[in-house]
């Protein structure tokens, strides 16, 4: 957009140009009018001379003819007087028409005719004082001829001058009209420029007033923000640290009155521990223009030191670079942080105690359980006689209970380890087919009577996965299948490996309702129809953790009374976590 000053300059320049043009036009018009007036005056003069010459030459004729007719010499002085005037006017006419070729030629002709007439008349006056009738008639004829010639010449000259007069008057009138039009145009232009200039200046003035009002509003806002801010704000010189201005929150924070703050440095006020501390902060501000979240141990007057968070930024203030500091009391936050830290430490300590307790409990429970288990085994070996069946039944019950209790201990221990993050996946190359066969063999000893556990594998045999975690997952799933399936039923483990490892464990057990399926992996959840078997409700919860650690997925499809199929999917690429 054209700058306003340039625009106004252009307008004024246009006005000046118009005025100068008006001046030139006026001068030119004056000059033309002058010339035109002179020409008209000259034409007037020529016409006057012609008319006077015509009168004098007629008088000259009259006096000479009177003399010829009467012979009275009293007419002669009048004749000579008229003759003299005629010649002087003729001379004047010749001079006046010297610039007009046609009129000059006519004037020359007139001059010749008049001079011939005078010459003829003069000679007649001197040669014959009493002319005969014939001479007189001849003279009259001759005079008439000259006179006619002179009259016609004068008439044509006068006509020509009148034509010139008319032409010049008309030209003068046109010139005046053109001048008037141009003058009016220029005056109109000047007027228009003046109006535009006026409104432009007015618009600019209004805009400036508006901007000033906005600036004032912004300034008022800044002043309010600065002085009324609940955050301590101060403006200081960069190098010396002399405080130039500050708000009441700042004064309250540092325990000084405003008058005692202005003009003094942070060090002089005893707020900071050392000049080096200030230089360190201001150095970073100088480098980055702004520095945030600088935590400083501030020492207010008459109060205990407090933790404050300082944000400092460079800005232009009264024409120079200054540092604006925003200071926030962090004492409450620090105290809260300390409380949280203590609570966290306490929580960690409790968690550690819990973990240690579970580990210790697990260990300490196992020792008496081993005694119970081994004693039961010995009782079983020593049983004989009529009560041997009952003894064996109770030994089996003891053994089963010990195993159940051990399983519970194992689950609690596993969950604790998972929650502590002590278990991590360590993938390795694994012959999945052999792994599943071995696993299946170990389960066959635990299967119920007539339960068949089968393994089917397809695809590549080598997979890349954490052996222990996969073993724990399958142990849990197959154990569940055994526990919740009837005797003489089938449990199938299927696997297929390519770029993915797909595993499934299916049974013909009691199944899981749709409602229960939604909560299967929740901690301590037990399906509504699972009461027939003891359990903690942690097995599938732990299994889901293990699957997550392997970045795998699990899907459960089940129908009450028909069985359950649990399928899992893991990526099988070395280098990508399974």
């Amino acid at each position, binding site marked *: 957009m054209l700058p306003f000053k340039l625009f106004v300059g252009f307008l004024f320049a246009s006005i000046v140009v118009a005025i100068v043009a008006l001046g030139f036009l006026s001068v030119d018009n004056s000059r033309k009018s002058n010339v035109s007036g002179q020409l008209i005056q000259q034409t007037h003069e020529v016409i006057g001379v012609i008319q006077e010459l015509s009168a004098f030459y007629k008088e000259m004729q009259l006096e000479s003819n009177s003399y010829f007719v009467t012979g009275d010499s009293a007419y002669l002085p009048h004749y000579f007087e008229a003759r003299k005037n005629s010649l002087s006017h003729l001379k004047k006419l010749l001079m006046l028409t010297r610039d007009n070729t046609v009129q000059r030629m006519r004037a020359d002709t007139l001059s010749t005719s008049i001079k011939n007439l005078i010459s003829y008349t003069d000679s007649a006056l001197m040669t014959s004082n009493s002319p005969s009738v014939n001479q007189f008639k001849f003279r009259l004829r001759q005079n008439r001829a000259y006179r006619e010639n002179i009259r016609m010449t004068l008439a044509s000259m006068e006509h020509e001058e009148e034509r010139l007069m008319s032409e010049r008057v008309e030209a003068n009138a046109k010139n005046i009209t053109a001048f008037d039009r141009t003058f009016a145009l220029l005056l109109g232009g000047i007027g228009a420029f003046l109006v535009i200039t006026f409104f432009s200046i007015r618009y600019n003035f209004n805009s400036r007033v508006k901007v000033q009002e906005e600036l004032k509003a912004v300034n008022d806002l800044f002043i309010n923000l600065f002085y009324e801010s609940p955050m301590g704000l101060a403006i200081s010189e960069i190098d010396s640290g002399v405080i130039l201005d500050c708000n009441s929150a700042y004064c309250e924070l540092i325990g000084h009155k405003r008058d005692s703050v202005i003009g003094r440095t942070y060090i002089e006020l005893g707020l900071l521990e050392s000049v080096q501390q200030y230089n360190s902060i201001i150095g970073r501000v100088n480098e980055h223009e702004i520095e945030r979240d600088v935590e400083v141990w501030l020492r207010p007057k008459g109060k205990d030191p407090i933790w404050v968070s300082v944000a400092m930024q460079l800005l232009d203030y009264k024409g120079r670079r200054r540092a604006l500091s925003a200071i926030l009391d962090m004492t409450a936050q620090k105290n809260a942080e300390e409380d949280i830290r203590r609570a966290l430490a306490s929580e960690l300590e409790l968690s550690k105690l819990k973990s240690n307790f579970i*580990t210790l409990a697990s260990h300490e429970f*196992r020792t008496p359980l081993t005694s119970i288990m081994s004693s039961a085994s010995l009782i079983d070996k020593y049983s004989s006689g009529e009560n041997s069946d009952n003894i064996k039944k109770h030994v089996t019950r003891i053994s089963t209970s010990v195993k159940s209790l051990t399983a519970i201990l194992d689950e609690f221990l596993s969950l604790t380890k998972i929650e502590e993050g002590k278990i991590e996946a360590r993938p390795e190359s694994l012959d999945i087919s052999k792994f599943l066969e071995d696993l299946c063999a170990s389960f066959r000893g635990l299967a119920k009577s007539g339960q068949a556990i089968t393994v089917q594998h397809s695809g590549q045999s080598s997979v890349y996965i954490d052996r222990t975690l996969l073993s724990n997952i399958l142990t849990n799933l197959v154990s569940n299948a055994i526990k919740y399936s009837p005797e003489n039923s089938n449990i199938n483990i299927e696997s297929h490996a390519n770029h993915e490892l797909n595993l499934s464990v299916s049974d013909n057990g009691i199944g899981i309702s749709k409602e229960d399926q939604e909560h299967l992996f929740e901690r301590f959840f037990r399906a509504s129809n699972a009461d027939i078997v003891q359990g903690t409700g942690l097995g599938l919860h732990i299994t889901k953790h293990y699957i997550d650690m392997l970045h795998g997925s699990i899907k459960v499809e089940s129908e009450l009374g028909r069985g359950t199929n649990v399928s899992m999917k893991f990526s099988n690429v070395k280098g990508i976590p399974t």
Partner: protein
Amino acid sequence: MKTALVIEDSFEIRENLSEILELAGYNVIAIDNGKQGVATAITEKPDFILCDILMPQVNGYDVLRELKNDPAAATIPFIFVTASAEKREMEHALTMGVDGYIRKPFDDKELFAAIDRVLAR
């Protein structure tokens, strides 16, 4: 008759384990601490050793380390019988050269399976 050395500080377990092994036809030497266990292993040269890990003064790891350092006893099959469920303990034991690992509580099946495995090597 194969000789088994049982090193276990728990009286009940030591007695029961010895009795189960004897009923299975093994000659059993039962010791209640690690230090004496090492000495007995070196002098008696049993066919295999069943040793607890967590014992006062000289623990199971110390026993294994001492025996592995003794040329005469280094080759005796060594089985840890432990109440620890820590996976890292099992891994540590394997790195030290243990031949078998039984977690308490165990039944006869698990016990004899582990013994058969180490004796078959």
